[in-house]
Structures are given as C-alpha cells and as structure tokens.
C-alpha cells in the first residue's frame, strides 16, 4: 500500500480556457466548445484524436452526454466527475491516470459551469441534492468561512483590525493580479479602502472577501510523457496529484477550532511526497489556491507549509504572496478575479501554472520565481471541518 503518484509519467500538451464572465449569451455547450477548441489547437489535435474524455461539472449537466452531445463525439468514452469545488482538478486527475495506466494514449479533461442561468446571485447550491430530513445546516459557505476569522485571530493573537488588514491585502492582491489577465471576470484593481467598506455578507466578511460568480470552461489534453513532444515543444509534466476527502468530523468534534483545514494539509504532504519536495517554499515557484473567501487563502498558506502555523498573516502583510513576492499566490487573479464556475475552477488554476511554466504569461504578470520550474494548484470543496481537498504539482522539466 502506498501513494506513489505518477511523477513525470504524464504531460499536459494543450489547454483551453474561456473568458470567465456572466455569459448571458452563452450556454454550457458554447463554453465547452470554446474551451475544447482552444486545447485542440494548442495540441494540434482534433476531437477524434482524443481517446477518452473526463467531464467535470457540479451542476450544469450529468453523464458523459454533457460533452459528447455538444462536441458531437463518436464512440468515445466520457466519464462525468463531480467532487464539489475540486471537480475540475478531479477531471484532470482521472484523465492523467488513464494515460499513465496505458489504457489510452491521449485523454482530455473538460470542466464547465454555467451558473448564471438560475436567477439568483451567488452560487445557488448544487442541484439534485438528495431528499433529506431537513436537519442539515442551512447557512452559506460565506458564513462558515467567516467563523475562521475570529477563531484565527484569537488563537494567534491577531487583533480584529489587523485581521481586517490581512484579509483586505489578500483581496487587494488577487484583484491586482486579475487586473493583468484578460480572461478574468473582474479586470480592475480594487483599493483596500473599497474592500473594507463593501457590504457585509456574513460575520465580518464583506463582498470583496468573497469570490465572484461567473460562467466558464477550461480543458486540458494529456498524454504519456514520452509522447509529449509529438504535440508540443513545451509540455507541462505532472509531478504530483493528491486528493483527500475529509470525513466531516469537524462538524461534530468539539476539538475542531476553525483555524486549520487538515484535509488540505494531508493532501499537500502526500503531493510533496509524490514529487520529492522537501522545502516547498524554496522549490516551488508559485501556487494557485482556492481563495473562495479571504480567510480560506490565509489558512491554506499554512496547510501548504509555505510558512509556520500562525504566521501566514505576517507573510501576507509582508507581501510574500504578492505577484512580485517570494512566493506568488494566485498570479492569475484567483477566484476573486475569476469568479467560481465550480467545474471549471480547478482546471483554470492548472491553466495558470501551464501558462507560467511555458513562459506564456504576459510580461506584466510573469512571475520572477518561475525559474524554479515547479508550480502548484490547490482546490477545496466544502467547508471548514468537512471538505475535499486536492493538491497538484506541475513542472516544465523532467526529473
């Protein structure tokens, strides 16, 4: 028994990513075609050149028909996956394992979400929830993550005003990065003053502490590493793929204090083991993380071992995670700038790693640390105490 990973066995040879926006004039099918065609073009392939598909969506479709129909695939295997907000990454994980196993030569992952057709603001919850007894918690994700703010401040001796400053810096930083990305939903810098004066949503979290809501689709084509140069001269190699589904004990366990997400810590440790990483802060160039709410990003810094427990707030204020910092976080703008089409977000994060590792980011967004040659993505779905977590590591060189 053991988690061995598939380091250097699989490569991404082409990706696509739509603009993330309130696409009132486009449905899920349009977004799928957009993202798929970009990836086909990047890899020099067409739909018949893909041997198997993985389709990730949380609430915009069901079954493999969700892409087989709009792409008009003929006799292709399509696996539909759903793993809450980690759905997009999970789709790619399945595709990567399929080619690593030798079952297929070339596979494609497509993640999509069309969330703006429901008539509600925000993410209006997953459709098709099973019938229940009505006893489940009813509060929003914003409220659940809001509980982390006073808990973290109290545990690590950070006063309310400083916590506010820390969270505002995270939001400011992600919007600063998103202002340099034409695919982002929000392409404007936002001042910390605006952030701190925006309307309250839950607890002390304000509108600008929460991710936006957008439609979007992303895609990736993978093959075995030895075949990668057939399709591109700049392949991006899988170094680690790690996934943990928590057991939700944080809901029932009086010892859980809302200052840590152990599922993410476990996924990160596993990923570092697969990739042979001993000092992530020095060895990895950047990470895309799940900044659904600003306190989530804060705590994720500690779960990824980018700093000591209880110190991420200082590193945030010191600019460590800024675009020009020692370890850029969300250089593409994150969920804050992109919104969160659930099935697409995980692959969107990988798209930024792919872009930076291939040296294709525009100069105003190219990070200087990318010379380290490794980039990381982190996804989570769920809430403090009950979440799924994914951590992946990508590199532009073998070895």
């Amino acid at each position, binding site marked *: 028994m053991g988690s061995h990973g598939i380091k250097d066995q699989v490569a991404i040879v082409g990706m696509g990513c739509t603009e993330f926006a309130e696409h009132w004039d486009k449905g899920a099918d349009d977004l799928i075609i957009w993202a798929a065609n970009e990836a086909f073009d990047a890899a020099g392939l067409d739909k018949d050149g893909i041997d198997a598909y993985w389709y990730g969506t949380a609430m915009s479709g069901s079954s493999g028909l969700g892409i087989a129909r709009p792409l008009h695939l003929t006799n292709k295997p399509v696996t539909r996956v759903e793993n809450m907000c980690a759905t997009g990454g999970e789709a790619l994980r399945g595709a990567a394992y399929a080619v690593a196993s030798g079952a297929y030569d070339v596979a494609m992952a497509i993640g999509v979400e069309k969330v703006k057709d*429901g008539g*509600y*603001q*925000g993410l*209006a*919850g997953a459709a098709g*929830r099973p*019938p*229940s*007894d*009505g*006893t489940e*918690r*009813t*509060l*929003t994700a*914003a*409220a*659940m993550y*809001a*509980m982390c703010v*006073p*808990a973290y401040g*109290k545990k690590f001796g950070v006063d309310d005003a400083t916590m506010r400053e820390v969270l505002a810096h995270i939001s400011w930083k992600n919007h600063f990065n998103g202002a340099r990305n034409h695919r982002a939903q929000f392409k404007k810098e936002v001042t910390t003053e605006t952030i701190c004066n925006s309307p*309250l*949503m*839950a*607890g002390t979290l304000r509108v600008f502490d929460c991710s936006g809501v957008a439609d979007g689709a992303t895609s990736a084509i993978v093959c075995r590493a030895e075949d990668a140069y057939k399709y591109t001269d700049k392949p991006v190699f899988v170094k680690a793929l790690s996934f943990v589904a928590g*057991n939700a*004990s944080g*809901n*029932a*366990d*009086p010892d*859980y*204090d*809302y200052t840590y997400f152990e599922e993410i810590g476990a996924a990160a440790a596993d990923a570092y083991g697969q990739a042979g990483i001993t000092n992530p802060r020095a060895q990895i160039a950047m990470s895309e993380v799940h900044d659904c709410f600003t306190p989530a990003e804060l705590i994720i810094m500690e779960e990824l071992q980018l700093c000591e427990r209880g110190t991420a707030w200082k590193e945030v204020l010191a600019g460590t995670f800024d675009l020009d910092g020692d370890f850029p976080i969300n250089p593409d703008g994150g969920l804050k700038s992109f919104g969160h089409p659930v099935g697409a977000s995980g692959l969107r994060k990988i798209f930024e790693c792919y872009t930076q590792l291939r040296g294709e980011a525009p100069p105003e967004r190219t990070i200087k640390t990318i010379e380290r040659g490794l980039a990381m993505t982190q996804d989570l779905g769920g809430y403090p105490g009950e979440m799924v977590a994914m951590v992946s590591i990508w590199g532009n060189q073998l070895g």
Partner: protein
Amino acid sequence: MRGIIAAAGYVPYRRLDRSTISQFLGSGGGRGTRSVASYDEDTTTMGVDAGRVALANAPAGFQPDALWFATVSPAYLDKTNATTIHAALRLEADLALDFGGAARSAVGALRTALVGGGSVMVVSADVRTGQPGSGDEALGGDGSAALIVGDDEDGPVIAEYLGGASATEEFIDRWRVPGDSASGLWEERFGETQYTPLGQSAWKRGLEAAGVGPEGIDHLVVSGLHARVVRSIVGRLGEAKGAVVDDLTSTVGNVGAAQVGLVLTDVLEKAEPGQVIAVLSLADGADVFVFRTTEAIRGYQSARSVADQIAWGAPIGYGKFLAWRNTLSVEGPRRPAPSRISASVSARSREYKYAFVGSRDRSTGALHLPPARISREGDALDDMEPSPMSEIQGTIATFTVDRIAYSPSPPIVFAVVDFDGGGRLPVELCDLDADALQIGDRVELTFRRLFTAEGIHNYFWKARPAR
C-alpha cells in the same frame, strides 16, 4: 384523588407594545403588551416547549398514558399535530390526539382528562391573529400550556379536582372560516346577553358539585375571548369576585385556547397548600372547574415559571410582527427557497430530528450529532447507545451572522455549540439580539419550524440563550 400532577406555561420571547399599532396605523392598539410567537414558532412548537417544562415538573421518568393537544390554529389539518409533540417529547403513550377548532376544545380536553382515567398530558396552544388594527390583534397573545392530569398513583397530585359543570348554547358571537387568518365578531353586547346566564348557571352548579361556596375561593380565574363579559360577569359571582386573579392580558394578551392552561399554571406556581382555585371559562357556553391545592404543592417549583417568562420578554416592532404573521409580505434574500423534506428520510431519523437524540460510543464516550454508526473516535461500528440531548445545555464555541442565507426572517445567526458532556452541533440561534452575543455564551435547545415547503413543515431544533 385525581387532579393536576404538573403544570407548565410557555410564553414566547417577543412582546409587541400595543401603543406601536396606532403609531403605525393611526388607530387601534391600546395599553400594555402582547406576546408574539416567532416566525419559526407555531402552535405545535409552542406545545412542545410547554410539554418539556411539564415533564421537568413531573416526577423523574414520568410518562403519561395519553397526549391530547388543542388549538384554534393548527399547523396541519387532516394530519394529527399531537404526533409531532409526542415525538419531540419522546413520549411512550399509545395515544396522541388533536382536539380541533375552537378555543373551547382546550377546555373540553381538560374536562375530559379530569373526569376520565389514566394520566393525560393536556397541551393547549394558540397564535392569536386579527386584522391589522383590530381588537383581536391587539388583545390576543401567543403561547401554550401543558397540564398533566392523573391520579395519586401516577404522581403527587398538587391540585385535586373537586368538581365542575358546563353549559352549552348555540349562538353566533365569533367565527372563522377554515383558512382565514382573522375571526369575525358580532356586536359584543349581544354575546354578553348570551354568556352571562350560561356563566351564572355553570358557576352555581359547578360550586355545588365541588362542595364549596363562593366565599371559600382563594383564586378565581375568569377566561374567555369576549373581554366585555369576562369583566362584567365577575360582579355576578358573589363573594368570589375579590379572589379574581390577573389573567395576564396586560402583558401576554389573551392566548385563546391556551388561556385557561396558562393562567391556571401561573396561579398554581404561586398557590399555597389547601387553597381553592375556581376557573370559569366562557367559550361557546361556560365551563367551571374547582380545584384544591394539596400539601404536595409545598415542594413544587416549576423549572420555568410563567412569571419568569413574562419578565424575560423583549420588544418587537409592529412591522416585523406583521411580517412574521404573513400579513406583510417582505422581500427576503434572493436565494432559492428550500425543497420540501422527505417523509421517509424524516421517519428514519425520527429520534434525531424530532427528539434530538444523538448517539454515544459505548467504548470511547464520543457523542455524535447527528447519530453515526461508525465512531469518530476509535472507528467502532454499531457500538452506540442513544443519547437524548434536547435538555442538555451548551456553550457557544464560535458564531456568525449570515446575511445572505435563505431565512423567513433574515439574517440568520448561526453558532457552533459544544454540549455539556460532549457533542457539537453547528446550529441556528433564535430568540436573541445578535449584538449582545459572545463566544462562551450558554445556550439551550428549543423545537422550531425551520421552513415550510409544499405545505410540509420542517421541524427541528434551534438554540436560544439559556434563560
């Protein structure tokens, strides 16, 4: 000896100052306050709250043989509401019945219990509504009561039933077509002409049956929704008129079906041994009950007295009152309304959903809410025992105010509550002013109606500040 073994009243937390009605409407209102059931309360949930206190006041482990529930404002028709109370109280009684429709049904249930056999918990509850600006709206009140009736062998009787009498007549004084939220009223002087002789007749015969004279009465409860006759008839009850008690209408309002139970409970909580209590109820006739308190009342103290609950009340604005009663339709958060609950899932989780019973790992003691089959400590499978948690208090570990979640009355205040002796639940709070809330505050549980979808009410527990 047969009589009352335990009594309990429930007065909801909010109070409407009647003077605010005329400030809003330009007319109506009056002096004093009335109690207001929260948006998440109905007659069933209030019945549960009174029933819990009654069980706490009864001998430890007491189980009635039957549960009877009476209200003018039932949460369901065609489906028995008493079964919900039965489940929430975890009763073992083979019989749970509704006495429907009129305020008199509650009085009739009490009469039937007193003259019958076995032990009966008689629960009455009401949410009193009326057209904005009306007397019914201002003078009404919301609340419930639970009286446990039985014989000596069921538990110490605190008030022996000495006897009583009734009178019945058909006349139109107040009426309501099913589904309407307000009653119609005939000119009140006509009703007075009908009620006065009925009351006098029942009073005379009731005292004779009990073997007491009007001079021997220590506490006189006069109850009824016809306020004019309730006042005027006292003068026709001989020497008993000096014993008339506060009927709580200036603070709680007239709680309709629950008024006899609530006021009688308040009297019992203050009574001395050997005192005679007479009740005259005027509702579509007249009913008289005469009790004498026993020595057992000397050591009897309610776990939650009516007087304390009246004192705890906090104000509510008239606009919110109208919204809570659905008189005013108010814009809520733009979130999808919840789906109806599943009958079969609810039946499988009956013990947890209705009675808030968790499970405790026999080997590690780890408490699970909701109940689990595999322990979160030690992973033992199916080695759990049921752990009733509804009467256990807890402490707030952390909390948040959610301004965007769906709620019939936003915002929602949610807290992570750690229960004494183990167990944690993230749970919605109610009956509080969020500004004063702090981590470490103590809370207790209360049975509430979370929402209604497709006509199915979703009942579950919330937490309120411990009082």
